């Protein structure tokens, strides 16, 4: 079952992409940058699902009499829907970012926290 690094190359690529996305989400304060990082994370999951379905010598799962060996169609179906749902949720996140920008005037996480803290301090000082 377990081979060398070469047999797991696709997994390693997926892991590295996933970690790059994770890093962007954690380290960057800008909300739009965070969403781009999140979508990179998502594409790494696509890769993780699609790669095991491939068979050497197989062809795309569209049946024709000339071919006998097909790649596994099931991951394709799952990821196909995941992509479209992914873009819909990405748009939802962007809509939230736009609303935050209208309320706070910024999309930087630190500045939003600072504004929140300032409001909290002012409310705490009032009574």
């Amino acid at each position: 079952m377990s081979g060398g690094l070469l047999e797991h190359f696709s997994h390693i690529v997926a892991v590295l992409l996933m970690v790059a996305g994770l890093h962007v989400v954690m380290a960057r304060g800008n909300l739009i940058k965070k969403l781009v990082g999140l979508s990179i994370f998502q594409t790494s999951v696509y890769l993780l699902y699609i790669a095991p379905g491939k068979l050497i010598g197989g062809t795309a799962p569209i049946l024709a009499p000339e071919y006998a060996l097909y790649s596994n169609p099931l991951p394709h179906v799952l990821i196909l829907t995941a992509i479209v749902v992914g873009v819909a949720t990405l748009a939802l996140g962007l809509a939230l970012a736009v609303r935050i920008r209208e309320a706070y005037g910024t999309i930087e996480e630190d500045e939003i926290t600072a504004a929140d803290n300032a409001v909290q301090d002012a409310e705490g000082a009032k009574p």
Partner: protein
Amino acid sequence: MMALAVLVLVRTRNLFAVIVLSGIYSFLMATLLVALDAVDVAMTEAAVGAGVSTVLLLGALHLCKSEEAKPVHRPWLPLSLSLATAGLLIYGALGLPDFADPAAPIHRHVAPRYLQNEVDVPNVVTAVLASFRGYDTLGETTVVFTAGAGIIALLRRRRHPRNEDGDHGK
């Protein structure tokens, strides 16, 4: 190529460049998916990832500032955390079946039945999507619909009663 695009993407602070790079990244991902025989997925990724989501990101960017602020704290903690996650995941991946191993569980379970073509639709992906897994797809369509409804709810309001939100910001 893709690693390069991602690295530059992580480093760049100009959001416009980031968005264009993510479009390029999507196209590269689509070509990779073609190489892995997932033509349907590649088509969707090219249309959605490189087309629609780039336009959406640019539209959102138009409403926000296009330069990212310099991070105040050093990114060592997230970086080390990410690298630790990477190490752990790669260690776990070594236990997974080899690439293109015909004996892997994924090729043994339900896929052979899907490939028998009971419904007489040559494109198996379409058959599985709409017929065998109809409930899944109904759920996904509902999720897409809900996301659309959520965006309408978030962005529809005109700008007249702005003062409440504005006060909160100040």
